[in-house]
């Protein structure tokens, strides 16, 4: 009887396991789950994304953490890994004020196993990046970023090897070669961003020799570049992507490579289920159309109380940080949309001093609050400059500067705030001849001369229809404008800016 029962159990076991056996009849198929996020940008708190749902908040570290825990428990911790495809820290005040520390604590708490370095990881300079790397309980990966002598970016590794359910998995990190175009050049001085297609073939051979059966590229270069990469580099099983903020709801397949990306801001958790032949590493099956899970943060949605507590603590701390005095003004700082303002002068002066260029331009519409005389606190800087504008430095000819001023003269509101330049407008004259007198420094504007100027990325994109800013040369992006203003106030306080007739009107 016992023998009979044993035989039945044996047959049942075979029937249960049969579907999981590799086609070759080798060891059973292994199931792995890749949990992934990218471009979190400091979004520790839930937020409304009205184009998705106008009533229910989404995202937030506590809700994301709970979803990660549940997915990990469901799939099994031994076969699950959690990855970030970069740009985790810069973005929201709760992270910015603490230079990303709350995000690192969140990532440590939920057990990230690796992240690749995104372009925005350089935004606060190399020292801050080094601090973040040192604080992380997981490795930062950057296979294609080195010093000029080929030394890997400090504190990073090109790849890691993980053992998941008996499958050796290589995770290789790469970041966009366009990083020098999108951050302050001083932050990446001395670094070389090599093309991933040049770096990866050798690394893939290396990790395969080390026994990797599955190769994952953790990529911060955008979906289009990821598709090109998959088309030209063999041997990548999965690309977990970021940078383009693409919600890849159905994994993209290029040749034999599966490409995923989980939108941005922690709105989604990517959940990629893979079935692997453990002998060959071949991906036998990948999850279909439920790869992205929306992180809903409604009143009935579950959240991780430990992470929520941590976020709340930083929420309280930021109240204190926002009340920190960064400067002092001896006069009211008052904006004015249709003429020069003293706060406009102050901001433009800060932009010009920070970059050392000849002229600064800022749009009046980007200045959103006044500051009464007295101490200036961080929260007032956020009120004055609520937009996340970056300094944008470029070469313009004198003729182009004149075009810009003429266009500004045509506006009844939103006159440009300037530094390093004086202009007299005569609105009674025909369009194109209203900037009747322009000087840069002490000299008349020379139409044929090239001037180095600074503006913000809004105007540089042609915002407020200032098309001429789109035709600059030798462009570089700089620091966040708020940070620049804070540093200026720390250096020069007390300030007492008065309108200096940089922009005047006759016959108005």
């Amino acid at each position, binding site marked *: 009887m016992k023998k009979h029962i044993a035989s039945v159990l044996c047959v049942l076991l075979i029937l249960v396991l049969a579907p999981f056996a590799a086609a070759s009849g080798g060891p059973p198929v292994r199931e792995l789950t890749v949990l992934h996020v990218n471009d979190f940008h400091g979004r520790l708190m839930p937020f409304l994304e009205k184009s998705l749902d106008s009533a229910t908040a989404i995202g937030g570290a506590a809700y994301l953490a709970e979803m990660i825990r549940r997915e990990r428990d469901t799939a099994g911790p031994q076969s699950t890994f959690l990855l970030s495809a970069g740009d985790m820290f810069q973005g929201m005040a709760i992270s910015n004020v603490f230079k990303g520390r709350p995000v690192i604590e969140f990532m440590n708490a939920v057990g990230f196993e690796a992240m690749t370095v995104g372009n925005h990881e350089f935004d606060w300079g190399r020292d801050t990046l080094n601090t973040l790397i040192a604080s992380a309980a997981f490795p930062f990966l950057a296979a294609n970023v080195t010093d000029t002598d080929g030394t890997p970016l400090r504190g990073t590794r090109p790849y890691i090897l993980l053992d998941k359910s008996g499958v050796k998995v290589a995770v290789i990190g790469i970041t966009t070669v366009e990083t020098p175009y999108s951050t302050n050049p001083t932050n990446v001085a001395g670094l070389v961003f090599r093309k991933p297609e040049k770096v990866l073939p050798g690394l893939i051979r290396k990790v395969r020799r080390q026994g990797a059966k599955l190769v994952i590229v953790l990529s911060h270069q955008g979906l289009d570049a990821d598709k090109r990469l998959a088309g030209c580099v063999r041997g990548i099983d999965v690309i977990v992507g970021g940078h383009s903020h693409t919600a890849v709801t159905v994994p993209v397949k290029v040749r034999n490579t599966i490409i995923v990306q989980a939108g*941005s801001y922690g709105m989604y958790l990517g959940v990629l289920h893979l079935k692997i032949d453990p002998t060959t590493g071949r991906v036998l099956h990948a999850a279909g159309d439920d790869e992205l899970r929306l992180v809903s943060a409604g009143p009935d949605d579950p959240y991780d109380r430990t992470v929520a507590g941590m976020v709340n603590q930083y929420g309280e701390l930021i109240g204190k940080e926002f009340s920190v005095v960064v400067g002092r003004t001896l006069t009211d700082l008052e904006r004015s949309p249709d003429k020069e303002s003293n706060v406009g002068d102050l901001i433009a002066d800060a932009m010009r001093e920070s970059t050392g260029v000849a002229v600064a331009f800022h749009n009046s519409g980007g200045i959103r609050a006044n500051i009464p005389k007295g101490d200036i606190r961080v929260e007032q800087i956020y009120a004055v400059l609520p937009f996340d504008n970056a300094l944008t430095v470029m070469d313009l000819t004198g003729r182009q500067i004149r075009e810009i001023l003429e266009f500004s003269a045509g506006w009844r509101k939103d006159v440009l705030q300037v530094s390093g330049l004086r202009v007299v407008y005569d609105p009674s004259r025909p369009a194109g001849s209203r900037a009747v007198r322009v000087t840069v420094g002490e000299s008349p504007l020379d139409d044929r001369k090239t001037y180095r100027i600074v503006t913000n990325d809004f105007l540089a994109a042609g915002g407020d229809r200032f098309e001429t800013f789109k035709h600059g040369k030798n462009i570089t*992006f700089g620091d966040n404008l708020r940070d620049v203003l804070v540093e200026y106030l720390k250096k020069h306080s007390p300030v007492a800016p008065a309108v200096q007739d940089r922009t005047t009107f006759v016959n108005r």
Partner: protein
Amino acid sequence: MSTADARITVYVDTRPVTLYRGMQVRHALISCGQSLYDAALKGALYAVDEHGFRLGLEGALSDGARIFLRRVGSQCSDSGS
């Protein structure tokens, strides 16, 4: 970096838009018109790529990228300009 390298062309619906390299979806909308950007900020429209995947406003753009604008509640592409 050279000037030639410093610019990309992307397409908002079918409209070519020239931007500085390193700029994002939001810059493409700003370049097309403030009203588009304002509508996106309000959640009245959003951008998708050629696969129909949603793009964030701060999503990076590459040369030749094609983005399409969709009004919330509509499945159709809308030039919006």
